[in-house]
């Protein structure tokens, strides 16, 4: 693009600082104030005091910029780390608790049903507590979630399906009390709703919340590249300025510039070390906390599903088959759940990084194998047609599969509590490693800039 020549004529007043060799006829490039600034700058660059002024200004600007960028970037990292600790991880844990209480309610409802017309009060209470907890956590999750998001949609779905489910369970109970086999059909129908609608929605909610946690975690761990680059540039410029100073004056130290360099270096080191520590802690929280929490949470869900299916095998007694029509659906689902439970516990064992974490997982593993042994006995008893024996071996107080299931559940709860503690401690440490850094960056930036200006001014004064 070309401009018509001389549309804007040269400034009317001749430049008073114009060097003698400069041809005044040549029009300055650029426009207005900007052109004026450039011209002045060029003029200043021709004298040593002028050059020193420019260097001082640039150094101060670089150091201040470094401080500002650092304060800004680290604040973002610190707030992401804070989100991990105080917002997204608790929400993910809540989603896991919703998922678990739903599965637990279903297992408790089927256990209570098997016990006959009078449900044992502890089983009934367990069911009530699960439903109450799920409802409460759903409300809490809803207040923290945008209703149009994936989580919001799943929460809405759960809020619709949960009262329907509890209604079906009450129908099952009422019919059972009246001695009607319809109760068993209602119980199976309720379980069907649970496994078709509620549990998948709870799983999606959990997955969405966990993804959000992962996002916050990644944000907090992302290297502050701009700050590091700005720091390197600022230090480089300071070193260059001091070298130049040394060459022209033969003086090794300029106090101001040394102070500026020290402040900048301290800030750069603080930034690098602080963020490395924060990253390491957050990595640790993810690896040893969150991943274990996920595997253990999945294991617990599978143990609950397997328990519900085991109970329903006894309730339905072959009334529902797999799609190929060859085997009992509930017995098959039980076997699938137990297999996954075994695999997840194995992974949890590998992830458990200390004795305190490994203990409960190993207790769960041995309780699972006990459960499977007892279940084989249940199947044998069932084949022999001894229904009372089956009931005793499934929901009895001692020596039953229910007892083994309770052991698994208790062990997994302990393991989960331990991993949750590990996670929170590590993530808090990570967040702590960044605390003070934004304020420190601002202070050190100002300090460094002041040093640079003072140092240059000292040199400048030698020309007056």
């Amino acid at each position, binding site marked *: 693009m070309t401009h018509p020549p001389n549309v804007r004529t040269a400034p009317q007043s001749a430049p008073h600082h114009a060097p003698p060799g400069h041809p005044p006829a040549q029009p300055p490039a650029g426009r207005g104030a900007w052109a004026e600034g450039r011209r002045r700058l060029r003029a200043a660059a021709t004298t040593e005091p002028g050059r020193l002024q420019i260097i001082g200004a640039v150094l101060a600007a670089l150091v201040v910029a470094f401080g500002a960028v650092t304060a800004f970037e680290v604040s973002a990292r610190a707030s992401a780390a804070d989100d991990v600790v105080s917002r997204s991880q608790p929400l993910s844990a809540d989603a896991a608790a919703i998922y678990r209480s739903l599965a637990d309610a279903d297992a408790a409802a089927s256990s209570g049903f098997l016990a*006959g*017309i009078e449900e044992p009060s502890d089983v009934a209470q367990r069911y009530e507590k699960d439903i109450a907890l799920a409802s409460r956590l759903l409300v809490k999750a809803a207040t923290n979630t945008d209703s149009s998001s994936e989580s919001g949609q799943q929460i809405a779905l759960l809020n619709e399906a949960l009262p329907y489910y509890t209604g079906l369970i009450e*129908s099952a109970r009422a*019919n*059972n*009390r009246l*001695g*009607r*086999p*319809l*109760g*068993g*059909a*209602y119980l*199976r*129908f309720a379980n*069907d709703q649970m496994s078709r609608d509620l549990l998948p929605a709870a799983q999606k909610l959990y997955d969405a919340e966990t993804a959000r946690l992962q996002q916050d975690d990644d944000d907090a761990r992302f290297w502050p590249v701009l700050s590091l680059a700005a720091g390197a540039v600022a230090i480089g410029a300071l070193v260059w300025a001091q070298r130049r100073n040394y060459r022209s004056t033969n003086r090794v130290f300029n106090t101001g510039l040394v102070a500026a360099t020290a402040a900048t270096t301290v800030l750069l080191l603080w930034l690098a070390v602080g963020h490395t520590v924060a990253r390491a802690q957050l990595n640790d929280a993810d690896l040893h906390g969150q991943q274990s929490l996920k595997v253990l949470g999945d294991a617990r869900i599978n143990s609950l599903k397997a328990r519900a299916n085991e109970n329903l095998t006894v309730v339905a*007694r*072959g*009334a*529902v*088959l797999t*799609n*190929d*029509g*060859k085997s009992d*659906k509930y017995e098959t689902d039980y076997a699938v759940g137990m297999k996954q439970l075994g695999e997840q516990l194995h992974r949890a064992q590998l992830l458990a990084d200390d004795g305190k974490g490994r203990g409960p997982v190993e207790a769960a593993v041995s309780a699972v194998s006990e459960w499977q042994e007892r279940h084989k006995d249940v199947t044998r008893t069932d*084949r*022999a*047609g001894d*229904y*009372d024996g089956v*009931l005793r071996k499934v929901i009895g107080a001692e020596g039953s599969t229910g007892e083994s299931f309770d052991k698994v559940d208790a062990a997994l709860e302990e393991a989960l509590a331990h991993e949750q503690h590990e996670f929170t401690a590590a993530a808090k440490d990570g967040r702590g490693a960044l605390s003070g850094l934004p304020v420190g960056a601002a202070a050190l930036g100002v300090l460094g800039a002041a040093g640079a200006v003072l140092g240059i001014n000292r040199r400048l004064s030698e020309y007056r």
Partner: protein
Amino acid sequence: MTDTKARPSGRRSVRALRGWGGVAGMAAACALTAAVTLLPLSHGGADALTGNTGQALTSAVAAKADTCEDPEASLPPSSAGGPTIDAIKERGKLVVGVDQNSYRWGYRNPVSGGLEGFDIDLARAIAEDIVGSPDAVIFRAIPTNQRITALENGTVDIVVRTMTISCGRIEQVAFSTAYFQAGQQVLASKSSSITGYDTSLAGKRICSAEGSTAYEALEKNSFGATFKDKHDGLPGDEDLYTVPNQLDCLVRLQQGMVDAIVTDNALAAGQAAQDPAVELKGAKPFTTEYYGVATKLGHDDLVRRINQVLVDYRRGAWQKAYDRWLAADLPGITGPPQPKYRN
């Protein structure tokens, strides 16, 4: 597998030989062996039989067509023993396939925890006769579409489970004489516009048990009603219109997911007994069916023995059982169906 298949066909070919002479008999034997050996063992077996192999049989075996005019005609009664009866006696327990969700027929009383009902009483009577005690019995709850498989693979000795004697089924299992006359009937809310198995079903949603006689009837004529799930028998089966157990239909009806149920009137009466808001529609069943005790094909000694038990049972115990379990919900039945025998 081949062994268990070969035996019944061999037995039948002997019978066919007696009636038809050499050439026809051999042809029948070949056709029958092929048909029975190639039977699919899946739960769709009953449908596959009536649909496909039925045609192959009619041309080859005229004797079959005769039998099928009277599928409920069974072997003459006898109190003699035999290899099957000996095996049961040796075991000391009769293993009976029953339902535990059919109110008044075979159901588990949640109060007592025991199985009760009309079928259960009959099973006990058979156990008493064969093994000597009404308690010498192991009950196994089997689903509707596993009744035949359970007999074929020896999981149970007999099935007493409101099992309808039909032309298709007598190719797969042996039946005793009929112990109850029933028929398919429509069950709906008292306030429903549905009047029975007729055009009032048009546009309605109907529930039936997977692989049941009711489902077969609906396949023949559903009067424009919806009665199939999109993914029947596939992964993702909705289990809305066709369900694993007839009682599941009552849940769907109460939940407003279907408008009517088609099932045996005997079972429908059991459902109506559990829900005072529903009733049987139509003056009488639209089919006539007989319930029989089923055994594995070829267990002739057991069939004859059960028929003997039924001869005695019809004299008084039947009425007692009817009065106890069924009279209230299924009134107007004057007595057991008369037995029919074949030679």
